[in-house]
């Protein structure tokens, strides 16, 4: 175990507290940089989605995790970013310009959503943001002259310095990775400066924040704007990755997926947002795999334990019917959220911290180390 001996105020400010961080993050970066030349195109494609989801996760974390303002409307912000990009691209606007424009416009709309949200808290704010998402979805479907309605819009490949960047190329992956890294660094910078502390202050006690001189309304609007702007940037990349966007992609389901990203990752850490993004991107192929293979496996087990051919085939068809039920995916998402809130409120990142501590303290680790914290977090949620 390493004990830091702080000798300078700089020690509390710098992003990497000690040299070990350079090694581990340097290694991670190296792995991420050589990944496109080693991994299959399918895995790379998933990795691009991880980058995009993690970017949105960080954005949502700023609003929900740090400022304490819940939102189920982030799919709408993503949609606004995506459609702005598609619309501007149609008129020959170059990529860097519409990329920035999409982020700024989404940020502006985020600020506008923030104003009515000033008077709302908790569940009421969630409902307000859901309504906002529905309004945006409806506008996208009806405003045909701009959005092409339910037919959706095509979006051509990114053009950087006159070269077309295919959505499957390493360059596009690097672009997404760069956006994610810049988002994370910006967020870390924010968190170690007055604005970030004001956000956390608002989350924990608005009254105290106000009496310390924090203009609560202004900072809530700022938080909405920043969160929306980052989501808008991610939206541009999302549109390019899919190369086709239509209103039914940006539904409540997507907003819930973003909530899952931060909830499962760990609601108060940036590591959590990335872990959550990996989780949400991986769960889909995993469920597909289960759906395809589980009936056969279960039938095989049944046969091993003495079921006849007829009975095994019967089991197989029944399991297959169950696996292709409508809404099963939603139910599984729901169960996962409930289980995490009950048993691991600090998410995957919390679990990782415990594993790390176990090895640091080995053989002295006690299960009770995190007990008080866990009870505390739970009682907070019940309020």
């Amino acid at each position, binding site marked *: 175990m390493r004990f830091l001996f702080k000798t300078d105020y700089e020690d509390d400010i710098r992003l990497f507290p000690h040299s070990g961080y350079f090694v581990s993050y340097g290694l991670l970066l190296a792995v991420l940089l050589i990944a496109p030349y080693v991994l299959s195109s399918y895995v790379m494609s998933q990795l691009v989605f991880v980058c995009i989801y993690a970017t949105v996760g960080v954005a949502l974390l700023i609003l929900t995790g740090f400022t304490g303002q819940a939102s189920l409307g982030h799919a709408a912000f993503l949609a606004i970013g995506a459609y702005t990009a598609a619309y501007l691209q149609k008129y020959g606007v170059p990529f860097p310009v519409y990329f920035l424009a999409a982020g700024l416009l989404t940020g502006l709309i985020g600020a506008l959503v923030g104003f009515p949200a000033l008077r709302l808290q908790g569940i009421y704010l969630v409902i307000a943001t859901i309504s906002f998402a529905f309004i945006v979805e409806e506008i996208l479907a009806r405003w045909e002259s701009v959005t092409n309605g339910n037919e959706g819009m095509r979006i051509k490949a990114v053009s950087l310095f006159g070269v077309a960047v295919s959505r499957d190329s390493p360059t596009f992956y690097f672009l997404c990775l760069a956006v994610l890294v810049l988002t994370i660094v910006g967020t870390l910078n924010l968190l170690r400066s007055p604005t970030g502390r004001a956000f956390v202050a608002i989350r924990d006690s608005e009254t105290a*924040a106000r009496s310390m001189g924090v203009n609560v309304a202004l900072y809530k609007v700022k938080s909405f704007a920043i969160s929306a702007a980052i989501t808008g940037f991610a939206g541009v990349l999302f549109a390019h990755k899919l190369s086709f966007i239509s209103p039914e992609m940006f539904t409540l389901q997507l907003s819930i997926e973003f909530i899952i990203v931060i909830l499962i990752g760990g609601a108060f850490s940036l590591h959590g947002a990335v872990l959550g993004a990996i989780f949400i991107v991986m769960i889909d192929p995993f469920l597909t795999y289960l759906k395809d293979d589980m009936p056969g496996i279960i039938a095989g087990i049944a046969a091993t334990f003495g079921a006849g051919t007829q009975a095994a085939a019967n089991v197989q068809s029944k399991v297959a019917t169950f696996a292709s039920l409508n809404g099963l995916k939603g139910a599984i998402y729901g169960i996962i959220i409930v289980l995490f809130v009950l048993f691991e409120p600090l998410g995957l990142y919390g679990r990782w911290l415990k594993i790390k501590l176990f090895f640091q303290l080995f053989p002295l680790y006690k299960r009770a180390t995190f007990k008080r914290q866990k009870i505390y977090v739970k009682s907070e949620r019940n309020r």
Partner: protein
Amino acid sequence: MSYFRAESLSLHFGGLKAVDAVSFAVEKGEILSIIGPNGAGKSSIFNLISRIYRPTSGRIFFEDQDITEQPPYDIARLGIARTFQNIELFENASVLSNLLVGRHRHSTTQLWQELLFLPSVRAGEKVHRRRVEQVIEFLDLEPYRDKLISGLPYGVRKVIELARALCSEPKLILLDEPSSGLNVEETGDMSFWIRDLRSELGVTVLMVEHDMSLVNRVSDRVIALNYGRVLAMGSPAEVQQHPDVVAAYLGA
């Protein structure tokens, strides 16, 4: 002209007069205590000053400036800091970041500068950090710097609230029951700190307190309230002898 002045301040909730035409003045460098039975309107006066409530009528002046209509976040910027009766700390943050929030009124950096963490932000952070360190030293909080508030005992939290208010370098500090929930020893420490606030940092103190021994030890003057009205004003001894005050506490 006095340093801080409340003129016929009233706060009515429907027919209930929580604060009823209360006038008082605080001189610069003074420690003034407000006492009174439960529900006398002591904390309501604090909430009027820090603009959590809007007064029904009356005016508040600070350094000859009318602050009755200032938005709540501006009160801190003018140099009035406060603590809360039921601790209002930022639970899921470290002690250090709680104290740094106290520095908020001194921050001058813009959002875009903070996103890039420009040298100006870094320099500002170091200044804030140094100030916070002085307060940590003043209140003996060294062991707790990196601890989360949610894991700290009540007595320490109470001191951290005082520290957070001091970090904003206030001219006037409002202490809402600084000794509630503290044991005798901690109350003793608190009384030393309150006196040091004035003598070392030159802060004027307005305090609501139930513990008469603490009031006697630190206050220059005392105001006794009951049912939102001023019963008596004067030195601690005078106020405690006042027949109306005795009646309010012990019954007529």
